[in-house]
Every structure is written in structure tokens, then in C-alpha cells.
């Protein structure tokens, strides 16, 4: 049953992803390799759409991934499954509040999760970059986007918009 797999996978994302919406990408990357629900190209497309529509990116991308995997019922299921662990944790933590953040183990876990999240996301960036290494146009565009953001990170919309225009212009030149 795809619905059960979908629920379990997205429940796990809600329980283990740490550090904002983009931190869910390594999990979605892993899902695309294990199940045939969506391709890597579709994943980057989903991340882009999730970044330019209203709402939290991490939730939006779950909605989209669920939709790709099992239609509208799948998208509702993935969205809810991803938030369910948070619901339980918020209720528990609301009752403990200060005691929770002063606990030695909680502090140690949080301090350890930061470098792990960083490494997970770095490995995804490497994984996505490798197929593009042969494509000089992609490397130039990537370098350009990184250079213009060197001083400060701008809104995700800004990068997606500029890159989309660059892609359209390239298509126009190639067809000439």
C-alpha cells in the first residue's frame, strides 16, 4: 500500500529533520532513490515550486511530493504525517518548557544535530552537482548565482526567477 509507505516516510521526516524547510531535502532525495515516486529532476522542480508558493517550504514540498506519489489523497496524507510528530512534541514540550531546554541530553542532541544537518545537506548538494559537472552552462549559472549572493542571501524567489529567465534565454538562443 503506497499510502502506508507514504505516511511512514513523511512521519519520519517530521521526526528527524532539523533546521528548517531545506533540511527535509536529504530525506526527499533518499525517498526518490528508494521508491519510484518521483525523479531527481522532479525533486528540484518541487523544491522550486515550494519556495515560490506561500507557506512553509518544508510543508509545501511534502504536499507536492505526496501529490506526485499518490495524488491528492497522498498529498494530504504526506502533509499531515510530516506535522504529526511536531504536534506530539509541542504538546509534551509545552508542559515541560524550561526544564526541556535545560536538560543535558536535550542540549547535547541539539548541539550534535546541527553539524549532522549541515553535512546531510552538503552531501545532497554534492549529489545534485555531480550530474551537472559536465554541463558548462549549468556551472556558469551556478557560479553566477553564488557570486551575486556572496554579500547577503536574498529571497529564494529572486534566485529561482533569475535562473528561470536564464534558462528561457538559453532556449531562445539555441533555437536561432
Amino acid at each position, binding site marked *: 500500500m503506497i499510502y502506508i509507505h507514504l505516511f511512514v516516510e513523511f512521519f*519520519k521526516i517530521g*521526526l*528527524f*529533520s532539523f533546521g*528548517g*524547510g531545506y533540511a527535509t531535502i536529504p530525506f526527499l532525495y*533518499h525517498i526518490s532513490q528508494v521508491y519510484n515516486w518521483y525523479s531527481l*529532476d522532479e525533486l*528540484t*522542480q518541487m523544491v*522550486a515550486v*515550494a*519556495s515560490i508558493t*506561500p*507557506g*512553509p517550504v*518544508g*510543508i509545501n514540498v511534502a*504536499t507536492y511530493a505526496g501529490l506526485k506519489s499518490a495524488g491528492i489523497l497522498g*498529498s494530504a496524507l504526506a502533509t499531515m504525517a510530516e*506535522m504529526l*510528530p*511536531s*504536534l506530539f*512534541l509541542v*504538546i509534551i514540550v509545552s508542559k515541560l*518548557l524550561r526544564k526541556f*531546554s535545560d536538560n543535558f*541530553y*536535550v542540549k*547535547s542532541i541539539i548541539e*550534535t544535530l*546541527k*553539524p*549532522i*544537518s*549541515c*553535512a*546531510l*545537506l552538503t*552531501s545532497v548538494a*554534492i549529489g*545534485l*552537482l555531480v550530474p*551537472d559537472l559536465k554541463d558548462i552552462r*549549468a556551472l556558469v*549559472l*551556478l557560479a553566477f*548565482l553564488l557570486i551575486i549572493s556572496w554579500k547577503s*542571501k536574498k*529571497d529564494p*524567489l529572486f534566485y*529561482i526567477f533569475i535562473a*528561470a*529567465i536564464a*534558462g*528561457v534565454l*538559453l*532556449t*531562445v538562443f539555441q533555437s536561432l
Partner: protein
Amino acid sequence: MSLFKLFLIFVKIGAVLLGGGYVILPIMNSEFVEKRSLVSHDDMIDYFALSQSLPGIIAANISMFVGYKLRGKWGAITAMLGVTFVPFWCIVLLASVLGALTQNSYVQGALWGVGVSVIALIMLTVREMWQKSNKNIYFYTIFVLTLATLLVFKLSPIQTILLFTIIGVLYKRFAEGVK
């Protein structure tokens, strides 16, 4: 505050939320602290800090904290349903339109560019996480060990997280001790 009213406030918050979790704090502040004085400013800051240290989506976490504070567990569930309401339908509608458009070669060109921009966005997120972290020997060691392991072995994200969290916490327990 009725659950329905709470739902409507969170629908509005979900609809105006653009660009990731960190944008939500000023929006929540304006709705619940300034306009309605339902939550104190200090509580909101606490919820935001806790939302970042809990797993899951930051914006969803802080919404559920406020929902729980106002109306208990049904409040938390209402917040969860409210904040995702508009985003959910936006994605469903956009996805159905996008599917039909992808045959067009210009749209394919745009999507190629978008794919590259997502790599840039991920790299920038890594940089941001890196800048915001308290970088000490412990941070570097865990980062390098995790990345090296990921490059050599095919581990799932969850296996990676469990493995290195256990190693890290055991190290801290014995090297630094419980104070």
C-alpha cells in the same frame, strides 16, 4: 477565542508566509502579541527558540505552540490545519497547471534554470546554517565525520542521524560529563 476564529487567523498567516521559517516570527508577533495581546512577547520568543530546537518544520512548530497555548490540543490541531490550508491548495493547483506546461520547450528551459537555482539555494542554506552555528572542535569533528561517512557509505538520513547523535551524546556524556 473560538476554534473557528483561531483557524481563520492561521489561514491568514499561512497565506502571507513566504520564504521560509524565519519570516514567521514577525507575522506571529503582529497577530497574537500586538493586535490581540493573547500571547506575551517573551512567550513568543520562547516558542520561536523551542521551535528551532525541535525537529520538524519551524513555522508549523511555532503555530502549534501558540494554538496549544490558546486552546489546548484542539488549538494545536486547528493551528496545524489552518496554517497549511492555503499553501496546500496553491501547490495542488500549481502542480496540475505545471504538468500540462512541461511539454513546452521554453518551460523546459526555465525548469532547467530552476534546477540549477535549487542547487545554489541548498548551498546557501548550508552556508547560513554554518554561519549560525557555534563552531568549535566538536562541530567540525561531527561535520567532517558525517560527511565523510555519507560520501563513502550509502546511509539513509535517519541512519546517519541516529548513528552520529548516539556517538556525539556518548562522547559528551563521558568526556564532558553531566554538570
